[in-house]
C-alpha cells in the first residue's frame, strides 16, 4: 500500500531529524518484531542519548503519536493492549555505564544496558545488584525498573524500589528531570523514583538509573526441603520465619516447577511435591550454621533436608528465576499469572490454584516466594479461550478473597480485554479508591496520553 509507505516514510524522516538517519527504521518487517498485543508500530526509533529520548518524546507529544518504550521485549506482554501505537522507542543503544564508584557502592547506567552486562561490570569488584528478575541476564535495566521486576532474591534484598538511589527521566515535555541522587540516604523533595519504578513506561522514560550495590556473599549453598504436602510446607515456612536464619532466597515449588528447575538431575526422580528451596550466603561457618539449623527444623517437621551440589543449584536457580524463557519454546500457549498475597495465604492460594487447574485438566507449575507473598502460576498448555478466561477469573477471585491481587504477566493478546474486547480478562484487575489520584499523576506526567496509552491499570 503506497500511501502507508509514504506516511511511514514521512514519520521516519521526522524522527531521523532528531536521532539520525540510521537510527530510525520504518520497514514493516522490522516494525513487526516490535508488535505489542498484535499492533505493529509505524517506526522504531533508536536514540543514543538522553537528550535524543527527550526530543523524540517531545516531538511525539506535539504530533500526538503514541510511543511504547522498550529494550529487549522480555516484559512487553505485560499490560492491556495499547489503544494506539505509532512509535517503538528502543533504548537498546543506550547501554553505557555513566558513573561507577565501587568504593561508594554506587553505579549509574543507561536503561538499555543488559542486566547481565551490569552484573559482569560490577562483578569485577565482587559487587552485585541482588536481583534475579524474569528475563535474567538478557533483560534490560530499564525493563526491570519499568516493571519493578524481581525474583527469589527479593526474600533478603527487596526489589528495585529498595535499590535505586536516583533516576534521570525524560518527560513528554522534552525535559530531562532528576529524581534522587547518588548518595545512599536522601530525603530531599518528593520521591519521584518510587513512582517511576513499576510504572510500565506510562509516565516518563528513565534515561539513567543509579543503584546502590551490594557486596557479593563469600559462599553460597542451596538446601532442598522435600516437604511432601502443602500443610508441611506451611508449617516449615512458619518455623523458618520464626528462626534467626536470613536466607537469600526461599521458594516453594510444586512438582512441575521443581522438575523444570532441575531437569535430568538424578534427584528429579525423587522429587517430593512440593519442595522448599533455600539459598544461604556468607562465610563457611555461616553456611554450616544454616545446614545445622535447617536440619533441626526439617526433622521437627518429619522430613530430611538435602544440600544441592553447587553447579546444579546455580543452574536450577537461574532456571526458576527465569522460567518463562525455559518454557516459551516448548509451550507457546504459556500464560503466566503473578499473584501477590499476604504471606500467610500463599499455601492456601496454591492449593486453590491446583484444584482449579485439576478441574480443567490443565498442567500448571507454581513458584512461590513464600517469605514475601508472591506466587507465580504458569499455565503450561492451551485452553479454549472461554475456559482459560474462566480459569483466570477463578484464580483472580481466589487471590482477592485471600486479601491479594492477580496480574497477568504473560499471555496471548486474544485473551486480553481491550477497547474492542471488553469481555476478556483485564491484565491488572480492578483499581482501588486511589485510582483517581493515579489518573491525575498520569495527567501530570503525560497530559496528552502518548506513553503506552491504555496499557496500565484502569487503561491509563
Amino acid at each position, binding site marked *: 500500500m503506497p500511501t502507508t509507505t509514504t506516511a511511514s516514510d514521512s514519520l521516519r524522516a521526522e524522527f531521523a531529524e532528531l536521532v539520525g538517519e540510521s537510527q530510525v527504521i520504518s520497514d514493516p518487517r522490522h516494525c513487526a518484531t516490535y508488535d505489542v498485543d498484535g499492533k505493529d508500530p509505524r517506526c522504531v526509533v533508536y536514540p543514543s542519548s538522553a537528550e535524543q529520548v527527550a526530543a523524540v518524546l517531545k516531538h511525539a507529544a506535539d504530533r500526538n503519536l503514541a510511543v511504547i518504550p522498550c529494550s529487549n521485549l522480555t516484559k512487553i506482554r505485560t499490560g492491556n493492549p495499547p489503544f494506539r501505537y505509532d512509535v517503538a522507542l528502543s533504548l537498546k543503544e543506550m547501554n553505557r555505564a555513566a558513573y561507577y*564508584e565501587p*568504593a*561508594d*557502592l554506587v553505579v549509574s547506567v543507561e536503561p538499555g544496558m543488559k542486566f547481565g552486562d551490569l552484573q559482569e561490570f560490577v562483578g569485577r569488584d*565482587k559487587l552485585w545488584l541482588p536481583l534475579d528478575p524474569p528475563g535474567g541476564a538478557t533483560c534490560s535495566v530499564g525493563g526491570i525498573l519499568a516493571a519493578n521486576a524481581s525474583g527469589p532474591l527479593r526474600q533478603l534484598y*527487596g*526489589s528495585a*524500589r*529498595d535499590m535505586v538511589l536516583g533516576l534521570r527521566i525524560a518527560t513528554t515535555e522534552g*525535559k530531562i*528531570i*532528576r*529524581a534522587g*541522587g*547518588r*548518595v*545512599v*540516604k*536522601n*530525603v*530531599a*523533595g*518528593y*520521591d519521584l523514583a*518510587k*513512582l517511576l*519504578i513499576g510504572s510500565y513506561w506510562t509516565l516518563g522514560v528513565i534515561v539513567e538509573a543509579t543503584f546502590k550495590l551490594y*557486596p*557479593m556473599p*563469600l559462599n553460597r549453598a542451596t538446601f532442598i526441603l522435600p516437604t511432601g504436602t502443602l500443610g508441611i510446607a506451611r508449617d516449615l515456612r*512458619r518455623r523458618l*520465619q*520464626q528462626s*534467626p536464619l536470613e536466607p537469600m532466597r526461599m521458594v516453594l515449588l510444586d512438582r512441575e516447577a521443581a522438575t523444570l528447575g532441575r531437569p535430568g538431575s538424578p534427584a528429579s526422580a525423587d522429587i517430593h511435591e512440593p519442595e522448599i528451596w533455600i539459598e544461604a550466603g*556468607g562465610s563457611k*561457618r*555461616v553456611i554450616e*550454621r544454616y545446614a545445622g539449623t535447617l536440619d533441626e527444623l526439617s526433622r521437627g517437621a518429619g522430613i530430611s533436608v538435602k544440600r544441592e551440589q553447587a553447579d546444579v543449584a546455580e543452574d536450577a536457580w537461574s532456571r526458576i528465576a527465569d522460567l518463562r524463557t525455559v518454557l516459551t519454546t516448548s509451550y507457546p500457549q504459556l500464560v503466566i499469572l503473578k499473584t*501477590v498475597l*499476604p*504471606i*500467610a495465604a500463599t499455601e492456601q492460594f496454591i492449593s486453590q490454584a491446583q484444584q482449579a487447574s485439576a478441574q480443567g485438566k490443565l498442567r500448571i507449575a507454581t513458584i512461590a516466594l513464600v517469605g*514475601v*507473598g508472591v506466587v507465580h502460576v504458569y499455565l503450561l498448555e492451551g485452553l479454549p479461550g472461554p475456559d482459560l478466561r474462566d480459569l483466570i477469573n477463578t484464580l483472580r477471585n481466589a487471590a482477592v478473597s485471600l*486479601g491479594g*491481587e492477580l496480574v497477568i504477566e504473560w499471555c496471548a493478546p486474544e485473551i486480553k480485554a481491550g477497547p474492542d474486547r471488553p469481555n476478556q480478562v483485564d491484565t*491488572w*484487575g480492578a483499581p*482501588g*479508591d*486511589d485510582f*483517581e489520584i*493515579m489518573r*491525575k*499523576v498520569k*495527567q*501530570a*506526567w503525560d497530559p496528552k496520553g502518548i506513553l503506552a496509552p491504555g496499557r496500565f*491499570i*484502569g487503561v491509563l
Partner: protein
Amino acid sequence: MRPSRIIRELNRITDPQAVLWRPEDLMLYEYDGLSSVRPPDAVVFPVTTEQVVKIVKLAAKENVPVIARGAGTGLSGGAVVTEGGIVVSFARMKKILEIDIENQRARVQPGVVNLDLSLATSDYGYYFVPDPSSQKACTIGGNVAENSGGPHTLAYGVTTNHVLGLEAVLPDGNVIHTGAKFCDRPGYDLTGLLVGSEGTMAIVTEIIVRLTRKPECAKTLLAIYNTVADATRSVAAITARGITPAALEMMDGFTLRAVEEATHAGYPMDSAAVLLIEVEGLLEAAEEQTDEIEAVCLENHARAVRRARNSQERDLLWKGRKNAFGALGRISPAFYVQDGVIPRTRLPEMLEHIAQVGAKYGITVGNVFHAGDGNLHPLLMFDNRDREESQRVLKAAEEILVKCAQMGGSITGEHGVGIEKNEMMPLIFSADDLEMMRKLKAAFNPAGILNPGKVLPTGKLCGELRVQVSAGAAA
C-alpha cells in the same frame, strides 16, 4: 475572647475538649524541633479518620491551611505553622490497630510512638526498624511524613523501605488507600510518593508497616582514634571489605567529651574521634564481622577497639550516642544541626571542610553522625540571643550544604526539607525537577491548603529563619 466560627465548627466535629484555641494554649504548638514562626489559629485532636475528613473539608471550605502534627520532634520545621490555620494533632490517634506476626505487618494510627511499636512486638521477636534518636517521643505518622532514618538504617533502609500501605485523607475529603498489606499492588507506587511528602499531599490516617525479625545477635564496638582522618578512613575501609554493619556512627572529640560529661557512657575524654559500630545477624556472622571490623580499625590506626561485653554496656554506648544532642545543650545556649549527605569516600575531605567553615565564621562545630551512610550532622554552637551570631551560623550551615551538593550529595538525609531547606532545593534540583514536583503536589493538593510553605521553594529568601535550640532528641 470568644471562639470564632471555625472553632465552633471544630467543636461540633470533635468535642470541645479536643479543640484548643486560646492564645496561651496555641503557643505550645507554634514550634517543632527546629524553630517557630507563629501559632496556629486552632489545634484539633481527632480520634477517627471520619473526624479528620470533616476537619479537612471545613478547612477547604474556609480556605485555611491544615498542618498535620505528630510529636513535634521534627528538625526541619515540617510541623511549623507558617500562615496560620488548623493544626491536626494525632496525639489521640495512637492505637496499634493490628499486629499480624505471620504476615510480618502492623497497622497503626499515625500518633503511635515509634518505640512503642517495637516494644509491643518485642515479645514476638519482632521490631519496627527505623529508629530515629527521638524514637521515644516521635510518632510513626511523623516518621512517614519526613521519611525518617536513624542509626540502624545503614543496613535496613529508612522509613520508606518499611511502609507498605497508607490510608490518607485528600484535601477534598476523599479517603484513599494506597499500597496494601501485601507487596507489589498493581498501579503507581503512591505509598512511595507519599512517604516523605511532609504532609503536603495528603494527611495520613493509618499506616501499614513491615515488622522485622529481631536479629539473633548484636555486637557493639567502640573504636577510638587520635585523628578524625583515621576514623573516616576506617569507615570507607569497612565498606570496602564488603561488610555492611547495622550501624556505623561517628562522634568527634568535642562532641564525645560533652556526651561523656552528661551521660558517663565510658567514652575516652582525650580522643579525637570514636566510631560506634554495630553488627547484627546470626551469631556466627556477627562474631566474624566483629573480628574483621576490629582488624580494619586497627589497620587504620585506631588507638583501641573496645567491645561491649553485655547488653548493659551496649545500651550505655548507645545512650551516649542517642543523647548526644541533649548533651550539647548543656554547653551551648543553642546549636543548629545540619543533615547533609555525601558519598562516604569523601568523608575525610568533608570533615576538613566543616572544620574550615567553623574557623572561618568563628563558630564551634561538633560532629556526630551516621558515617556509614555519609549522612553528616555537624552541630553548630551559637547563642540564639545574639542576632549577628545566629546569622553567621546560618551562613556557615549553608556553606556546608553547598559543599555537599558539589560533592554529588544531598541537602538532607533524614530530617526532611520543611521550611528549613525549601529555598535551598535549587542547590540539587533544577527548575524542571521542581516544576514536576509542583505538578505532582497539585495533583493531590491543588488549592495548597495542606502544610503550605514546605518542601518546595516559595521564592522568599532564606536566612530569615529563627533557629532555636532543640534540646534532647534528634536522629
